[in-house]
């Protein structure tokens, strides 16, 4: 570089003021709002998880997660979420396939999908109550089984107040969520693919095995993972159902909010962080899988 290149602009001409920062000001309301009601609360939790009760930095909250009670809570949550995710995944896929490709009358499909929109929001207190009324100790099905079939639900060991029971209740919003996401994906299978496959000599089963299912797999997998995260974070339903008798991560956190059951705020924050981590990982995997399948289908 020669010495004469020090001034690259003609004298007297200033570079135009950068307009980018100014335009970002338009986002200020949104950013402030998000900060106040989303980002800062989370940030405080994060910071709090690294603090002792006197405010000094520490990692002991995280090591405290090894406490057997907390480990049990995580373990229960994982189990419940896994069962309801896999159950919801398989069930939702079968339902979607039945209603989209099974040759059922069209109104059934519309009805089921609309209902799914409702059911996916029906979590929480009313859902828990509804299942108590169904297969609780005095539930309708329990009584029918006893009076009509002579089967005592209690004798089989099944109770709604268990991991399996909670998972069964969770299915009520897991299945619809899977259905709502997977049904359009199945519909997106173009008719020409099936015809091209037939043209190449494939039977219906071969078409599903070699083409339809592989194409759908990322979505199926991804949505199942989404379901896992969905169940992991659910608090209201579980709490209403079990009253806190079965430790689940969100329920323990809820109890912590109410009345410091862990005797250590920081531990509560660490648990919350653990939960966020789990869900964050799930979402990332979901997004990654969706991206991959979208890339294939782009043409």
């Amino acid at each position, binding site marked *: 570089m020669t010495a004469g290149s020090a001034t690259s602009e003609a004298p007297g001409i200033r570079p135009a003021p950068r307009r980018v920062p100014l335009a970002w000001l338009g986002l200020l309301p949104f950013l402030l709002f998000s900060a106040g009601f989303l980002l800062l609360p989370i940030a405080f939790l994060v910071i709090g998880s690294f603090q002792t009760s006197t405010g000094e930095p520490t990692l002991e909250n995280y090591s405290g997660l090894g406490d057997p009670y907390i480990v049990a809570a995580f373990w229960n949550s994982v189990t419940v979420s896994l069962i309801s995710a896999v159950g919801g995944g398989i069930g939702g896929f079968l339902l979607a396939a039945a209603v989209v490709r099974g040759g*059922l009358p069209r109104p059934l499909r519309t009805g089921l999908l609309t209902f799914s929109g409702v059911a996916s929001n029906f979590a929480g207190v009313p859902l828990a109550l509804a299942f108590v009324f169904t297969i609780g100790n005095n539930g309708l099905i329990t009584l029918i089984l006893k009076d009509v079939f002579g089967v005592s639900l209690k004798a089989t060991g099944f109770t709604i107040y268990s991991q399996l029971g909670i998972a069964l209740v969770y299915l009520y919003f897991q299945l619809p969520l899977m259905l709502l996401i997977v049904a359009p994906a199945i519909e997106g299978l173009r008719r020409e693919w099936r015809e091209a496959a037939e043209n190449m000599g494939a039977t219906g089963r071969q078409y599903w095995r070699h083409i339809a299912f592989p194409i759908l797999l990322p979505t199926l997998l991804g949505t199942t993972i989404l379901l896992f995260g969905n169940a992991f*974070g659910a608090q209201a339903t579980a709490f209403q159902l079990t009253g806190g008798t079965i430790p689940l991560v969100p329920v323990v956190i809820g109890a912590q909010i109410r009345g410091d059951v862990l005797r250590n705020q920081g531990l509560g924050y660490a648990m919350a962080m653990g939960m966020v981590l789990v869900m964050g990982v799930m979402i990332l995997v979901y997004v990654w899988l969706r991206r991959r399948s979208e890339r294939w289908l782009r043409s």
Partner: protein
Amino acid sequence: MTAAVTAPRRRRRWGSPWAWLIFLLGVSYFVIPLIATIEFSLRAAYKDPVTGEFIRPSLAAYELVLKDPKFVGGLLTSFRIALITIAVSLLLLVPTAYWVRLKVPRARPVVELITLMPFVIPPVVLVFGLIRIYAPPPLAFLNSTFGTEAVLVGAYVVLSFPYMYRAVDTGLSTIDLRTLTEAAQSLGAGWPRVLWSVIFPNLRGALLSGAFLTLAIVMGEYTIASFMGTKTFGPYLSLLGQNKAYEPAAGSIISFAITWAAMFAIVIIGRANRGRTQPAGAP
């Protein structure tokens, strides 16, 4: 291409038996709990004093619930909070989405990430953080009813982010934003006018859908409301469920009916929207 109506030989007229089986199983799973709840809600009738058998179904439980001032209070409070949430959400997100599309496309990933965060932050964690910030001084909002409701609205708006923003963004993607704005500006409109008269009307369908979805979410929400001690519908139902026998069933059915009505409205809006003419000028 010739008519797309096909009748491939392999499809039987009435659908495969497997499909019917799966469908019926699915429907049973969804419907039976509702039936059980309805049945329970009708049990608040008179027992035969001798046999203890229920004599006849009655709507007594519904009567009790509907007459309960706490029910009406809770419902109205939830409704009020929902309306405020929707208004704030719209006022916040529509201009933001518009701004991002028009002026700061590079901010898009950031904004989208923020609007998707509620998926990663479950309500119980969010309320944990909110209490952490707003309970102790200096920001002791949660000490007053007004402050608590304000924080509640804030939380609900955040909860509505994924749905509202997505609805608005999709709606915006169907209209030619830049051209409409420039046309309006060339005719003398300032920013607020552009938003109000040009953008909002074209988004009506998307906004209404988002609004009803938010309504359904807020009406049914329990976690945040209860931890903040607000007297909305969710906590009321929970209280009912802990104290009474038959009224909770009635309450659940009412809650379900409300959600149904909101979803139904969305479907109707969706149908009406499809019939609307496309924005003029699209070739």
